[in-house]
Every structure is written in structure tokens, then in C-alpha cells.
């Protein structure tokens, strides 16, 4: 699946990258990313996840064809 990250997450991950493996839902993806990059774990805890430009819950099932956006807390304006 394709992961897109934004803002401060780009200090920890490439802006867009592929991730393989048997990740059944958003919670599993988040755990995998925190294992790959432990320094990002605190930031990931504050983020929300979106699939097809809609926010999804941790138990949302994901497939290898999905593009998943990781959305930090807003700081616009």
C-alpha cells in the first residue's frame, strides 16, 4: 500500500512511500510504522488516518491497493 505523510511527519518519513506486509487495518499500520521509526511514535499517536480522502477509524480494513494519508493535528491560519 501507499503511504502519504504531511508536515512534521516528513521529518520522520518520506513524503510518499510503499509499505508491504500483512497489515489488516489502520491500527496495525500505525503499529508497524512506530516499530520502523520509534522516534515517530509520539507524533503518530496524535495523527488521524484517511483513506480515499475520508478519515477512518483504527479498525478500518486496508488492502494493498489503498493509498493512506496520515494527518497530523491542524495548524493552519
Amino acid at each position, binding site marked *: 500500500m501507499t503511504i*502519504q505523510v*504531511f*508536515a*512534521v511527519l516528513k*521529518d520522520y518519513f518520506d513524503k510518499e512511500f510503499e509499505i508491504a506486509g500483512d497489515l489488516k487495518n489502520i491500527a496495525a499500520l500505525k503499529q508497524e510504522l512506530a516499530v520502523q521509526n520509534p522516534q515517530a511514535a509520539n507524533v503518530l499517536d*496524535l495523527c*488521524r488516518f*484517511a483513506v480515499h*480522502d475520508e478519515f477512518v477509524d483504527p479498525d478500518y480494513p486496508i488492502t494493498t491497493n489503498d493509498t493512506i*494519508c496520515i*494527518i*497530523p*493535528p*491542524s*495548524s*493552519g*491560519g
Partner: protein
Amino acid sequence: MIPSALSRPAVAADLPFLSAEPLDLVGLLAKSHHPEAGAVVLFSGEVRDNDPQTDVDYLEYEAQEAMASKLIRQILDDACEKFPLKIALAQHRVGKVGISESAVVVITASPHRAEAYSANRYIIDRIKHEAPIWKCEYFKNGTKEWGGNCNCQKITGDANKHVYEWTEDKK
């Protein structure tokens, strides 16, 4: 471009909600008059240079553009439900923004002034808290810092629960 004879007010359907170009405040204001609106309120959020620690050189705004645009449209629609608005528009800058430039503009127009002010704060507060738009401050000493305007979940314990200033107006 005065919206007329609309059952719902113009939410500036032809105005992109995000802009990589400088925001045209005066152009937008010049169009924001309506014969049934006795009150027009414009808010411009601008880049300051007086960060207490280090001087800001410029800012850069990044957005998840599809989601941010959709959310700003939703916020304007919600504002039109809550307040008797004749005009409601908002536009947020993306990319590099210099000192004193506008990063976000909100214009509301309504028959009486109380609603124009309240709706304006409602819209800007929700945009600042909810829209997937991020500010990065670039300082003159070469460092940078991603903004953290919305820390509401530290207070509410829920990324979907925000603490809004505009609610103070609603008593």
C-alpha cells in the same frame, strides 16, 4: 458577482478554497456586498514577525488539498445553516508566505452585525482547528518549526473534539 435570488447564500462556489497565489483581500472585499446585508466582516490571518524566541523569515503552508478544500466548503455550509448569512467565503494560502501577507481570509455578510461577527469567528476557528493545513515557520537563523496551533486533543483527549473561541459568543 453579487449573489442574488439564491435561497442559500453564495458560498463563493467559483472561489478556490486554497490558493498558491497571494490572497486578493481587496478584490474579495470589493465583491462582498449584498443589498440585504447590513454588516460585512472580513478577517485576515497574517504572518507576524515577533516570535518571542527567534525572528520569523517566512512561513510555508502545506495542505492535504482535497480534504482541506472539502472541509472548508463543509464549514461554510455549516455556517450558513447556523447563521443568517448572505455571503460566506474563505480562502487559505498554501506555499511560501511572507511577513504581513495574509495566510487566510474569511468574509461574512448578514443583515445584522452580531451574526456577521459570530459566523466569521465560527468559520476561522473551525478552519484553524480542523482543516488539514499545516504551518511551518522558517526562522532567520536557518531553523524551522512545524506549527502546533491545534492542541485541543491535549485538553479534550479526542482528536475530533476542539475547544472553540466562538462558543463564547453564543451565550
